[in-house]
């Protein structure tokens, strides 16, 4: 069971829930993520990850989003 320590989205286990605490990236990346509802303070659930450093599928609000591996590595989440 996870205990509230911050991990990257990539490190999260599939099925785990958490809250986004930071998005580490340039303004372009932050804006793109924000437009999809991915921003600090939002609850996020990790659905699955693809083999070989493929995209990671998450659920934010009622939306499913696929995020590239590199970006997912820079989204910091506090797990429940």
């Amino acid at each position, binding site marked *: 069971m996870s205990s509230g320590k911050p991990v990257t989205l990539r490190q999260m286990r599939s099925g785990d829930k958490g809250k986004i605490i930071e998005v580490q990236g340039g303004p372009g990346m932050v804006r793109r993520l924000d437009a999809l509802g991915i921003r600090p303070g939002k609850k996020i659930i990790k659905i699955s990850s693809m083999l070989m450093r493929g995209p990671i599928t998450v659920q934010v*609000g009622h939306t499913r989003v696929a995020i*590239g591996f590199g970006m997912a590595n820079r989204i910091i989440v506090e797990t429940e």
Partner: protein
Amino acid sequence: MQKSDIKKILLIGNPNVGKSVVFSRLTGVHVIASNYPGTTVGYSRGFLKFSGETAEVIDVPGTYTLEPTSEAEKVALQMLESGDIIINVVDATNLERNLNLTLQLLEKGIPMLVALNIWDDALHQGIQIDLKLLEERLGVPVIPTVAISGQGIKELVASIPLARAIQFNPQTHDQRWATIGNIIEHVQQVTHRHHTWRERLGDASVQPLTGGLIAAAVLAGTFFIIRFIGESLISYALDPLFSILWTPVVLKLSEILGGSGFFHATLIGNITAGELNYVEAFGLLTTGLYVPLAMVLPYIVSFYLLLGLLEDTGYLPRLAILMDTIMHRLGLHGYAIIPSLLGFGCNVPAVLSTRILESRRERFIAATLISIAIPCAALQAMIFGLVGERGFQYVVIVYGTLFIVWVVLGLIINRFARGFSPELLIEIPQYRLPPWRMVFKKLWMRVYGFLKEAMPIILGAVLVINLLYFAGVFDAIADFTAPVITGLLGLPKEAVTALVIGFLRKDVALGMLAPLSLTSGQLVVGSVVLAMFFPCIATFVVLLRELGIIGMLKATGIMITTALLVGGLLNLIL
């Protein structure tokens, strides 16, 4: 600026909210799919009659925000300037995120109303929305709709005169989200719900193992269904139509024209011993009609039917996720699978749609790979027709070779091209069963587009070929290029005419190989080289526009070299 009398209604909303379905419900038969001038982002225009007036309805490209993060969003922002009324299509199952755009639109001060779409799914998911309160907070009419079934559309149209432009003060980014958070708190309640089977299937489609299996099944199924529909249309409808109704007419005409002479050659072509072979005759009324209508059209119909279904059920983004890692090895983004799939219909919209990719480098790689290795439906129809006759294994060799070229060339270009390929970031829509009405409307638009654009070119190509034959131009070219054609590729020198005509139309060009009595191996080499060698004129024009002159020259160089190399290799092997 002069304002026309017809009011412009803009349908604006996030991607995947069902805007196109709302659009299709509002407009009649006369729909025009266009490209926004200066860019290649598509939008549709149609007309709506309500309370005695006619208004123009425009389906604006999906956008998440008015602070543009992509080409499509820049276009949407520009289009706002010429709108009279806005219908903001909102996804009721994603209210919070959708309201971001809604608030930004309200700040613009254009008369507006909100269509709260996918209302049925919201109810199923246990989402309850207080409509009256939402209307109050937003200050504009909010109409619940279920566009795919048509519910709420009448009310929506009736509410258009009630669209209001309100005073909404501009807010900062953070203020806006705070406002939205506040609205949601009061307006929306979510009760517990179970996972529907659709959601389970949706998630399974992106897990590595189940997703891979599903993808394999979908792609294989799609391929076989396309073949089945295409071949059925040919065998049961179009071939009989031509042989029973048209052949007697042509033979009679042949008699009247005396069996030879300029008009006979142009209109009817070569008939041997009273037997009409539509592919080899090469007259305007024979090959000119048969190739597009009885060989290509059936596959255009079946391909676009399946593509439309893949698009509208929401499967393609999931395919993009599965393919993303592999595509990155080729220098592409998972989403590039979509232009690539489009290429199997026609390379022109495929190359145009590479605009959805964000880096120049990706666009170059995707466009080049599409023009080299992805055969359009017209060419494929001919491959099935002509090469298929010799045995299905030869068709497999042709496709297999093209696929290997796609992968290997992608790997190579990825190694050497400068620039970057950005990461995947896409929303995954829920699986939906698209309404048949919409599927067929889309299909009709694409088929009609094909007929309108391709027919004249095909007829023109047949005419030009006949004229050039008469003038002896082909003989001259054939002699000149013989060393390469015969030496390297193992084809008779006359085959070069097919390559030349390939510049006009690839389907007609492949047909030119038919009367040359080639061995099956030679036919395979001919088909592969033809597919890869040089784009048809339509694709050429679009490539030039998208890649610029230098890009085009690079791409062309790659095409010609690769085509000859691969052709030569195949010649050795087969």
